[in-house]
């Protein structure tokens, strides 16, 4: 058997029953990383350190010690998540040599559970993008068709899981950055409820929208990782104290009697025929499994993208003001005085998309425009949030495509920012409302590229998402 094909659940069984050691597993992962190197999924790898950790875990297991929930499982972090003494670059020249002096809470929780972090994944610069093409360290490619993008911004995180270089990864999602790449690469991506997972130690893009989540090959693995990641944190006031259920508990309960809402605004003309057909097929499948499907109206959901670009850019402009070339990161070699040092360092350190968002953010925040743009956007955000809350009075989950098309060609959208922004049209409303959503594979198009289905849940009801997602995944496995 090829151990790299296993899910986290399966590989844990193989490790526990000593069919394979963690050291062997880490070596297998690195063999795969080397043979699929041209995908450019990873910014840095930690082979030596990973092997040391794996040997320690194997020794512990051999002596019968109690093991953590992820003991010996190789995982990857997105390169905007701090892990002490590793580089955290955000795929930006500005942070090209930045070494983390501390560890993010989400990474610490994985490490405490015994996971082995083997690498950090490529991404769009500062998580701004939908294709991983804004990375300062080269584009990441789609493992299914390397002439196409893996999606973004967590493109490397999705690619490395789909290419079986590791068993799971963490991404971050501000407007779709976990779900869109998961959809493009044919894997499972979860954006938890805003506040479900601590953001401490994760480089901020838009603090009121950012959320950390897992990318995995199965729905069950996603639930296993959320069990570990969820929870409050004294270092992040927005991390919720809401109780944490066992997210794996309802996985096999099926969808009999569950109400699935189909928002009519998500089945628009922008949708490619193949994606639409796959989704309609999935909805039919749910009906066969006993779910009831109801049409839902979200009248203002089409304004979410506009709200997103105002709010996220405003927050990005503020968050990225800290990159001044003084305390860490890039400092230009030549400058006239202190202010010129700021200008030169920022101009040389940031890429084009990041500069565009900073400028847009400062525009909507500047006097004369603040009310018309920022304050208005916050009001519209509230209206969209209310529409979601109303929808969840009529159904348990909402279903939509994750993206309007499958993975596009490298370079296809880089010249036109607006067309790139439209890639996030179905994922952005979820961040605007703060609710959780999961993207799972639901078929392939005529080119063999994966199609993703998005399931959206009530605030803090990830358990229902896993249940409904797993019912679909199980039914497609049976069909095979």
């Amino acid at each position, binding site marked *: 058997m090829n151990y790299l094909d296993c899910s986290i659940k399966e590989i844990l069984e193989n490790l526990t029953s000593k069919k394979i050691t963690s050291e062997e597993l880490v070596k297998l992962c690195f063999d795969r990383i080397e043979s699929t190197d041209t995908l450019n999924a990873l910014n840095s790898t930690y082979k030596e350190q990973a092997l040391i950790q794996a040997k320690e875990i194997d020794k512990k297991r051999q002596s019968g010690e109690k093991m953590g929930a992820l003991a010996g499982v190789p995982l990857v972090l997105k390169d905007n998540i701090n892990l002490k003494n590793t580089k955290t670059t955000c795929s930006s020249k500005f942070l090209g*040599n*930045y*070494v983390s*002096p*501390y560890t993010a809470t989400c990474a610490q929780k994985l490490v405490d559970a015994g996971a082995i972090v083997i690498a950090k994944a490529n991404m769009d610069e500062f998580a701004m993008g939908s294709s991983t093409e804004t990375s300062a360290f080269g584009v990441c490619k789609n493992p299914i068709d390397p002439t196409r993008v893996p999606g973004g911004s967590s493109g490397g995180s999705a690619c490395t899981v789909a290419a079986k270089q590791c068993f799971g990864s963490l991404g971050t999602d501000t407007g779709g950055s976990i779900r869109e790449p998961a959809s493009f690469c044919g894997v499972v991506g979860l954006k938890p409820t*805003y*506040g479900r997972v601590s953001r401490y130690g994760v480089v901020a893009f838009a603090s*009121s929208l950012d959320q950390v989540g897992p990318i995995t090959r199965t729905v069950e693995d996603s639930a296993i990782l959320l069990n570990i990641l969820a929870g409050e944190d*004294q270092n992040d*006031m*927005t991390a*919720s*104290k809401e109780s944490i259920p066992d997210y794996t508990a309802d996985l096999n309960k099926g969808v009999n009697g569950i109400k699935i809402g189909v928002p009519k605004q998500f089945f628009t003309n922008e949708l490619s025929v193949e994606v639409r057909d796959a989704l309609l097929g999935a909805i039919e499948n749910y009906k066969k499994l006993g779910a009831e499907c109801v049409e839902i109206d979200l009248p*203002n959901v*089409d*304004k979410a*993208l*506009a709200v997103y*670009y*105002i709010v996220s850019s405003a927050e990005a*402009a503020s968050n990225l003001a800290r990159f001044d*070339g*003084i*305390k*860490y*990161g*890039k*400092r230009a070699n030549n*400058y006239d*005085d*202190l*202010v010129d*040092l*700021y*200008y*030169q360092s*920022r*101009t040389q350190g*940031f890429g084009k998309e990041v*500069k*565009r968002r*900073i*400028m*847009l953010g*400062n*525009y909507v925040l*500047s006097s004369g425009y603040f009310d018309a*743009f920022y*304050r*208005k956007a*916050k*009001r*519209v955000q*509230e*209206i969209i949030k209310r529409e979601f809350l109303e929808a969840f009075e009529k159904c348990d989950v909402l279903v939509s495509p994750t993206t309007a098309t499958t993975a596009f060609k490298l370079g296809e959208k880089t010249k036109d*920012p*607006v067309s790139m*922004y439209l890639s996030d049209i179905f994922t952005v409303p979820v961040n605007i409302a*703060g609710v959780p959503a999961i993207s799972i594979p639901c078929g392939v198009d005529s080119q063999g590229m994966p199609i993703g289905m998005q399931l959206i849940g009530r*605030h803090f009801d990830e358990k229902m998402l896993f249940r409904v997602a797993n019912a679909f995944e199980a039914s497609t496995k049976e069909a095979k």
Partner: protein
Amino acid sequence: MAIEKQEVEKLAKLSRLKFTDEELHTFIKEFESILEQVKAIDSVDTSNVDLKECGDRVNFDSLQEDIERQGLSQTDILMNAPSAKDGAFLVPITVEEGK
């Protein structure tokens, strides 16, 4: 929505970013088309929304205890500094003698 070059130059100054004339030109065009999209929110009636009532879901009732905790060490803080000396970040002279 037309954007004046002067306006973008002002934004660049606020953002502490420099652009070449060519970059500014492309930028203005892209900016205009982004703002065109963003205008979509104008049509939404928001008269029944009071922003004071809809803060983000931060629980301000559970503020932290005010207890001393170990933070990062001076070495940790300075390890990424582009330029440091005697435990401090080095910056260009900001106040000159006799000025």
